[in-house]
């Protein structure tokens, strides 16, 4: 603390601010005070607002710091923030940060989202269901944002894992929210109560499993490099023996895959995230979960020598993830669960593009190395573009969900929503923009990155076919089919989500709405402004792709180090030269604009005719009385056909199956016909959990039974093993 304060006096010299360790100290101080203040003055209204203010200032400072080395991209810079000096004999533990292009992009995104969420939360945390807990939420939010930023700038194994753990703990604290709320107010039903209670446990178990795998992977790299610094890991990457590299790859894929939620490890996400406060979703699911993707890029491209088969494995896992999760997003019956599943679908799309990049990062027979590098760069640009886009449109959707949650007093079930577009026009319009963007339709941003992902897969196809790698080509085609299926289902999913919650007539009657004190008006202005900002970003990222893609090209050229000719800065779309063909993305073409103007003319001249007014009768229901909740289509009915074409392991609920995680998904909570499907992967997880419990019981009964004679045997065996190991390692003395 002392040296932080002394360093603060140097801050008059502004150039010092950009030195990484100074910046880290300033940011740490801001967020640190933000963690502490709301906890100390726990009953005062101002302290939670002060905490949010500090989070806002801290994130703006971080964003400025990142922009300082990212625009334009500067050379990587490392600095030591803290070094242990208490034990000379041990290698020094240190906290080292590194600022390079990739971490810059992530710091910028995380900080921007933290700032948006902070502004939004000034209003959102005033809702009655947050008021009791807002101090704790704000405090944990500060810690979470800080740890996430520090994770992506960490440059040594120790601080990386420590920051990951802090992220886990801070978010685990946020996940406690729902349980604490139910303890105060009582849970609406037993199922929700169970979910809220087990969510923090599940989250901690999953995160620690992931960290354990990652720890082993990184230590396996650190031993040959004889250093904990990630820079030394980078240097040592090319000399790694292939077997070790493969083992580390599998461990890292396991660890990071669990954290990112790649199938079959996606089971935790939709259980854990809905239990955290909705305003923080934009940060946690919008961007923080992608820290795992960031670490994947670091591990697979920098710390390890890439190999082609890794790419195929990652690609297949990723497209499978996308398909499975969009499927369960369709089957979900509330807004938060559906969006949580859907976030993992997008992680799948991002990881698929990384997989394509990984295929071409390694030398392949018959493909010219420089064109392979270009394709890898294209795929990485696609993946990072989708990462940004997903952060923006999913962030927008989470902000809107938070607003709906705020306005309707926590009602997020599709069966009780509907017609929000006429009740809360601004929130709902923003939600619709996010839906169109995420479904990938022009002119919004989702189209750009889906196009880039498809194009990189198609260019990869061209290159592999040219090299007569036939099986590989077919693998890519197979993945492409699954990916497109996921894209198509996304469109369906958002027709369902938007249609059920925003369109039609309200399924909750006006009396019930009054009784439950739903808001009379739309969300307050800080929330509206942030939703508007994100909606604007969706449009800007979709209409000006060349500028974003240019920055991404320079980032990719800096950090994993693959180059593709940057697209010319143009307001008429995006043009890239690949070794197979030149590809052009047409958006905001001047002629398209002209045609859109023609439409405007058409509407003006022929369409809006004030002498022939539009008639507004009641909805026609074949002569029978119209009721909003009984007549309208339900989500289960809407997805009936789509569900019919998929295989059926999802369908039957087995009463004898173990139920550690809730594996039953209720499609519709109708009074007469409750429709239930089974989340297949949760059931698998339940069987796995059962296996672990049974083996633990076995160990308890047989290996650790309290019998002292058995323990004496253990000591004897352990001594013999230690001696043998000692002799083997040291060599038998002559």
């Amino acid at each position, binding site marked *: 603390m002392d040296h932080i304060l002394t360093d603060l006096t140097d801050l008059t010299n502004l150039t010092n601010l950009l030195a990484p360790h100074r910046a880290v100290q300033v940011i740490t101080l801001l967020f640190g005070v933000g963690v502490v203040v709301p906890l100390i003055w726990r009953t005062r209204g101002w302290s939670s607002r002060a905490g949010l203010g500090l989070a806002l200032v801290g994130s703006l400072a971080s964003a400025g710091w990142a922009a300082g080395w990212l625009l334009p991209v500067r050379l990587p810079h490392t600095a030591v923030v803290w070094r242990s000096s208490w034990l000379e004999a041990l290698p020094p533990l240190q906290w080292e940060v590194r600022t390079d292009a990739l971490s810059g992009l992530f710091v910028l995104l995380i900080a921007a989202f933290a700032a948006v969420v902070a502004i939004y939360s000034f209003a959102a945390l005033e809702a009655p269901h947050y008021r009791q807990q807002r101090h704790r939420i704000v405090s944990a939010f500060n810690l979470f944002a800080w740890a996430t930023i520090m994770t992506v700038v960490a440059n040594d194994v120790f601080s990386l894992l420590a920051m990951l753990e802090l992220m886990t703990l801070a978010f685990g604290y946020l996940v406690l929210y729902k349980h604490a709320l139910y303890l105060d107010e009582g849970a609406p039903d037993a199922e929700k109560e169970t979910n809220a209670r087990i969510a923090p446990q599940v989250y901690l178990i999953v995160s620690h499993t992931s960290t354990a795998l990652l720890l082993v992977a990184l230590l396996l790299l650190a031993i040959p490099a004889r250093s904990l610094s990630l820079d030394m890991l980078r240097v040592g990457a090319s000399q790694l023996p292939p077997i070790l590299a493969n083992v580390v790859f599998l461990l890292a894929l396991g660890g990071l895959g669990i954290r990112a939620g790649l199938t079959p490890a996606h089971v935790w996400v939709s259980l854990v995230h809905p239990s955290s406060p909705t305003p923080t979703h934009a940060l946690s699911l919008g961007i923080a979960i992608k820290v795992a993707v960031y670490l994947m890029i670091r591990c697979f491209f920098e710390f390890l020598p890439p190999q082609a088969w890794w790419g195929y494995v990652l690609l297949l896992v990723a497209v499978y993830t996308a398909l499975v999760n969009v499927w369960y997003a369709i089957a979900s019956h509330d807004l938060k669960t559906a969006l949580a599943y859907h976030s993992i679908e997008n992680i799948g799309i991002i990881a698929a593009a990384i997989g394509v990049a990984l295929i071409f990062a390694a030398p392949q027979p018959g493909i010219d190395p420089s064109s392979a590098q270009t394709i890898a760069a294209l795929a990485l640009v696609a993946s990072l573009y989708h990462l940004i886009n997903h952060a923006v449109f999913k962030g927008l959707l989470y902000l809107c969900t938070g607003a709906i949650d705020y306005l309707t007093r926590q009602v997020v079930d599709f069966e009780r929503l509907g017609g929000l577009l006429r009740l809360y026009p601004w929130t709902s319009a923003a939600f619709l923009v996010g839906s*169109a963007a995420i479904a990938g339709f022009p002119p919004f941003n989702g189209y750009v990155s889906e196009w880039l992902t*498809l194009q990189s897969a198609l260019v990869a196809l061209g290159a592999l076919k040219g090299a007569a790698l036939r099986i590989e080509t077919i693998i890519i085609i197979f993945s492409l089919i699954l990916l497109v299926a996921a894209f198509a289902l996304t469109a369906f999913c958002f027709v369902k989500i938007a249609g*059920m919650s925003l369109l039609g007539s309200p399924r909750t009657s006006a009396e019930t709405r009054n009784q439950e004190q739903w808001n009379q008006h739309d969300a307050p202005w800080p929330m509206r402004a942030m939703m508007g900002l994100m909606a604007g970003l969706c449009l800007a990222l979709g209409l000006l792709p060349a500028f974003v893609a240019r920055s991404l090209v320079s980032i990719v050229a800096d950090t994993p180090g693959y180059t593709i000719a940057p697209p010319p800065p143009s307001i008429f779309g995006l043009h890239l030269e690949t070794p197979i063909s030149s590809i052009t993305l047409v958006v905001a073409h001047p002629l398209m604009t002209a045609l859109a103007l023609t439409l405007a003319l058409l509407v003006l001249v022929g369409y809006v005719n004030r002498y022939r007014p539009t008639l507004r009768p009641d*909805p026609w229901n074949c002569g029978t009385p119209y009721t909003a909740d009984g007549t309208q289509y339900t989500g289960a009915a809407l997805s009936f056909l789509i569900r019919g074409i998929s295989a059926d392991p999802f369908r039957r609920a087995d009463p004898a199956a173990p139920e550690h995680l809730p594996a039953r998904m209720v499609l519709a909570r109708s009074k007469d016909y409750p429709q239930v499907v089974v989340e297949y992967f949760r059931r698998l997880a339940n069987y796995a959990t059962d296996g672990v419990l049974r083996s633990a019981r076995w160990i308890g009964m047989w290996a650790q039974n309290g019998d002292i004679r058995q323990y004496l045997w253990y000591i004897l065996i352990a001594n013999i093993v230690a001696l043998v190991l000692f002799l083997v390692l040291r060599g038998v003395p002559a």
Partner: protein
Amino acid sequence: MNLTAILLSGVIGLAQGTLLILAAPGVVGLLRTIKAQLQLRQGAGVLQPYRDLFKLLRKPAVRSNATSWIFASTPSVLFVAYSLLVFMVPVVHPATLISGDFVLAIYVLGLARFSLSLAGLDTGTPFGGLGSSREMFFHFLTEIGLVLVVVGLMIHWNTIDVQQVFEAHWRLGLGAFFTRPELLLLTLSLALLVLFESERIPIDNPSTHLELTMAHKAILLEYAGRDLALVEWAEMIKLTFLLTLLGNLFLPFPSLLATGAIPVVLWSVPAYGGKMVLLVLLLALWELGQPKLRLREVVAPGFTAMLLSLVAIIYTIYTTEG
């Protein structure tokens, strides 16, 4: 290219797209008339769709009080989306107003379906929801099928740019085209997908008036007056676009490579007209001989289209020299 050439090609592209938009009701009129004649009926004449549209455009729109601006704006979205598509394909002259790739075309078609499905749910009535459900179900099948056709083109030509693929086909010529089995398979696949996209028999019956058998039309049922006119017109434009795409891409005749040469255009106008009449005739004959499939069985033609493309793709992969 100098400025005059750009302007000239822009004007030509605009002209042929606009003409196609205006001619679209005529194509549907022709289709209905041929069908009527084949059924030994008189038919209402080729110009009847124009009369219908004109009548509807003068009538007030009816939008139930459960609907919002989504429902009101969907007709315009459909009209603009399908009109944009028309400006992407060469019709009788290689110049197009918008140079895009096939992915853009697929996504614009998707945007229209997305918008229409939202409108269906916005009505708050069961028919709208029923239509949305079926519409998005078809969207799932066709999007995969269309992307597979695009993958087939990519594997074959190493590009999916509309202009470049058309040029490649013109260079190949009609005779050589029929010696390439993979391209013929892609043609068949696209033809099936055209039936899907334009909601014809056996997928959907465009002339049904029984709500429960409808898919696409169940949403259109909610529209009235000038809204209905715009939607109907948009549907006609879509059919015309799809037939033009099928005819010009997979019957690459005559070659339009000699850009802007007047004699080629003189030759290509009757050739295009002939192709459209042929396709309309084939469509009419096909529809007469087919019953509409049950809803769940629609999966079969969808997967058939995908399989045709897949066979074409695998054939191309295994006949390419490394």
